[in-house]
């Protein structure tokens, strides 16, 4: 079943909030959903027939996992809670509650859950960020505190604002070390993008200023 949702900015058009409701924040956004509108898989593969088929298989695998968990399989229940957390079916809080009653997670499962919970917290904090500098600095401070507490940095779409807001906060507080760390992390993730070159040049200059101030 092929469904196309067009964000039109026409105030009377239907389903203009659907992109956000289904976890999208940019275009194009491609997902598989069930008839209830639950997201079964997000397409992050290449955009061709083979790539779409692979994501379709992921959607099928999610449905099979759900069926297995429905029969009380404990391992499937853990995997299902993690998958639901990843797909945004349940909140971080609900995920924690579900997993708490399912026994000890493996190291790999725990690492995945930690990453998902941290990303969910970053997403929540980003909702409070506006054009006002204070809101940006507050989020940057929160992210730096999370980082210092050993929480994993987000890997998905949240990574860019996460590191940039930490840099803004570090710049405001003349913290060259933190600024350099965040810049390094951003460069590792986006350094290959030619469109980001001017951004990195500007930030290297800022870093030099911060380091010179320190001397």
């Amino acid at each position, binding site marked *: 079943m092929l469904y196309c949702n067009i964000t039109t900015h*026409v105030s009377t058009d239907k389903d203009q909030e659907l992109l956000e409701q289904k976890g999208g924040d940019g275009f194009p956004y491609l997902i598989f959903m069930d008839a209830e509108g639950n997201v079964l898989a997000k397409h992050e593969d290449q955009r061709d027939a083979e790539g779409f088929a692979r994501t379709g298989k992921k959607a099928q695998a999610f449905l099979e996992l759900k069926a297995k968990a429905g029969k009380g399989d404990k391992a499937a229940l853990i995997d299902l809670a993690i998958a639901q957390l990843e797909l945004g079916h349940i909140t971080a809080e609900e995920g924690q509650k579900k997993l708490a009653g399912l026994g000890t997670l493996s190291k790999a499962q725990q690492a995945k859950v930690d990453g998902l919970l941290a990303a969910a917290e970053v997403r929540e904090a980003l909702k409070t960020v506006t054009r006002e500098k204070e809101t940006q600095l507050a989020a940057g401070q929160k992210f730096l505190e999370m980082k210092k507490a050993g929480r994993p940095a987000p890997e998905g779409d949240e990574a860019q604002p996460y590191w940039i807001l930490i840099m803004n906060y570090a710049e405001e507080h003349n913290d060259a070390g933190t600024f350099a760390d965040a810049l390094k992390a951003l460069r590792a993730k986006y350094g290959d993008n030619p469109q980001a070159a001017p951004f990195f040049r500007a930030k290297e200059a800022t870093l030099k200023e911060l380091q010179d101030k320190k001397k």
Partner: protein
Amino acid sequence: MRVKIGEGMLAAAIALGLASQAAAQDEMAEKRDKKLKSEFFSKAAWITDFEKAREESRKAGKPIFAYFTRSYSP
């Protein structure tokens, strides 16, 4: 010096604002219609009504493959 906006001026400003908003909406609707007429939509049976897509999905017992795009810019 403080500038006080008189009632007449305020009404005119509101009317102008509403007119420009309506024009912007017309322009957006035009862009949407252009997108819907594009070659992409003629190549497959895309459903643009979410409720209808869900209904069809239920009837066919098949999942929905959803493509989110925009019409207001390329």
